[in-house]
């Protein structure tokens, strides 16, 4: 009995020896890059997104992958000068309360420094005030509403990719210029749909077009037949779809079934390449839409997108590209600021222009809006598409100053100062 105990003790001591050495070595390694002061020894990034619902295609696991790639690339660039970075992810199920709950837990308990993606406006608006209260950073890539940099803006938030204003202006203006001067709106009957309709109407009228009328459908809707027939009867050249997600997809499918397209053309006011991919070119051909990123735009975008495609088997949407670019920009700012304290990092993020495949010389404005170029795109006909994901003609590059809501027009108090 005694021998057994002795043996156990000795072997335990022997076994712990290498562990102790390893620990000491690690301590040494940890001590070296003292340049960056971090609150809990590492930078923690949270990607809060829709991993299972309607928006999981345009953000979801692709956004998580994009963030992972950004972290890996940053560590590869910096080599041993990099600090420890951890990525956490969660599904917010597109519910504001789930998102705010999770964000609070991440901030209070897990010391998360930055939350990214935040697809759907309700989740973004729910997390932003929590982050502000706890002095952490949010980078919105997935959500679209203008209040994010308008009346709900905070000084610790960046709205990185797109908003409804940019899309409405891009598509509205361009379509009128191309001869689509009479419009009819199919609008989702809630605040978001109304705002989209209002913004686009202003642009259409300002460019010499006419709005013949609009019809409001319940949100969420499945049967659009009576609304589409109204739109058809109006005789408008363009039917503007002031809705999103499944509503837009259903409306487009049903418009094709009713033979409304291609006699009248549709203009999607909030659409992504993932929507085109799932609807197919046959139903969507000829449609105009605006996006903040297209994978097949130049060599740089193609190079990054190919890397992304290899891992994800789908081309990146503008949201996913934005998550990569913004995460990398954030990490560089942490490095430059020498701390992960939110205000200092945000200052660096705003000082340094973003210069990568996603945006060229783009700066973050005081209200948090990243001012960058947009692209007016037209969906190709099936016979024009040469390879998978070859979906768009780039009709026009919309210059940043034309695409982004001018500072004087926003309601954000941070810009008024």
């Amino acid at each position: 009995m005694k021998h057994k105990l002795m043996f156990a003790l000795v072997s335990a001591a022997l076994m712990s020896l290498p562990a102790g050495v390893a620990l000491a070595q690690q301590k040494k390694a940890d001590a070296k890059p003292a340049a960056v002061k971090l609150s809990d020894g590492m930078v923690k990034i949270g990607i809060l997104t829709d991993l299972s619902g309607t928006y999981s295609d345009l953000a979801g696991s692709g956004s998580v992958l994009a963030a992972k790639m950004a972290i890996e690339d940053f560590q590869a660039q910096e080599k041993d000068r990099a600090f420890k970075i951890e990525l956490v992810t969660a599904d917010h199920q597109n519910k504001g309360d789930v998102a705010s709950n999770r964000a609070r837990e991440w901030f209070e308990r897990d010391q998360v420094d930055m939350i990214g993606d935040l697809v759907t406006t309700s989740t973004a608006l729910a997390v932003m005030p929590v982050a502000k209260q706890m002095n952490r950073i949010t980078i919105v890539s997935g959500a679209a509403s203008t209040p994010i940099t308008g009346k709900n803006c905070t000084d610790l938030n960046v709205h990185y990719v797109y908003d409804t204003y940019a899309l409405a202006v891009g598509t509205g203006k361009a379509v009128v210029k191309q001869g689509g001067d009479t419009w009819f709106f199919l609008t989702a009957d809630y605040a978001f749909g109304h705002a989209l309709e209002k913004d686009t109407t202003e642009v259409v009228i300002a460019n010499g077009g006419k709005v013949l009328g609009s019809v409001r459908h319940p949100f969420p809707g499945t049967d659009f037949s009576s609304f589409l027939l109204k739109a058809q009867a109006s005789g408008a050249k363009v039917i503007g779809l002031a809705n999103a997600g499944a509503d837009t997809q259903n409306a487009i499918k049903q418009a094709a079934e009713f033979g409304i397209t291609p006699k009248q053309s549709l203009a999607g006011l909030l659409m992504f390449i993932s929507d085109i991919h799932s609807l197919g070119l046959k139903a969507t051909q000829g449609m105009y839409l605006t996006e903040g990123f297209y994978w097949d735009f130049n060599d740089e975008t193609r190079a990054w997108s190919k890397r992304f495609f290899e891992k994800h088997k789908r081309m990146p949407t503008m949201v996913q590209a934005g998550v990569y670019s913004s995460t990398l920009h954030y990490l560089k700012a942490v490095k430059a600021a020498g701390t992960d304290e939110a205000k200092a990092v945000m200052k660096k993020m705003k000082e340094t222009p973003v210069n990568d495949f996603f945006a060229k010389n783009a700066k973050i404005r005081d209200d948090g809006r990243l001012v960058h170029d947009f692209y007016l795109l037209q969906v190709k006909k099936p016979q024009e598409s040469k390879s998978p994901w070859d979906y768009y003609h780039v009709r026009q590059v919309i210059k940043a100053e034309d695409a982004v809501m001018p500072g004087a027009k926003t309601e954000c108090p941070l810009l008024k100062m």
Partner: protein
Amino acid sequence: MSRTALGFILLIIAGVVAPWLNIYPTFLMKGWCFALFACAFNLLLGYTGLLSFGHAAFFGAASYITGHALKVWGLPPEIGLLAGTVFAGVLGYLFGSLAIRRAGIYFAMITLALAQMLYFVWLQMKFTGGEDGLQGVPRGMMFGVIDLTNNVNLYYVVFAIFLFGFFMIYRTIHSPFGQVLKSIRENEPRSISLGYDVAKYKLLAFVISATLSGLAGATKTVVFQLASLTDAHWHMSGEVVLMTLLGGMGTVFGPVVGAFVIVTLQNELADKVGSWVQVIMGFIFVICVLAFRRGIVGELMALFRNLYQRPVGLSARQADVKDTKA
């Protein structure tokens, strides 16, 4: 000491000690809010025998009113909570006076229809923020002295609110009024023949239940600083039915247990399985209905009875009635 008193003491000890056991306080607060909601619902389903399928209406309405009162009108939290609760009570009176004219499935359908109407009102109204909801509701200072931005303070306030609501329900059940409610549940025509104005009793039970559901919704708004459409959606009405049935309908402590089980599941599973949470919940519901119809607490109580008392010739239900009288 009766078993109920023992249950109360255990509950209070658990509530007071919980935040010191390294359990995340916001999660606990969510649990207490839903526990109160489920208890209020149980008053109607378990003790009056009325299945309302629109209780989210009261929960959601109170959370919007409280959110608006705190955020836009800048009222102190105690007044904001009161405003939401009173609004839910008034709403309960309106819904109740319509719904109790019918019984059974028609009653459930009327409550569901009214709740859905209200849901679309919240979707359309400007002040609720529609799809986006109402965010950044300030927590403020309770009675001007208790700083609710501190999580520990807030926790004990929420727990106190829960205890208050819980005690109200307990008193209601064990009053002569509660006895009449139970007699309505057991045999409505007989209660009428005994001379009770059944409609009035049902309405009052409905209003109390709605008011306390409102209190739960209002408290939740203060905790999460957010009111959203989720609170008013019919999914929420379904969830509270599930909590009550799982914990044990018609038992005092059942809904509390049910609420915590569901909230824990949602919290733990959300990251791992995403929307499959809904499927898992449905599965649990099926198992609960098929295998243990009395719910967790109901089954435990039955087990204890079998072990120690073994009532001869009493069915489980009669035993329940006897037990709640005790």
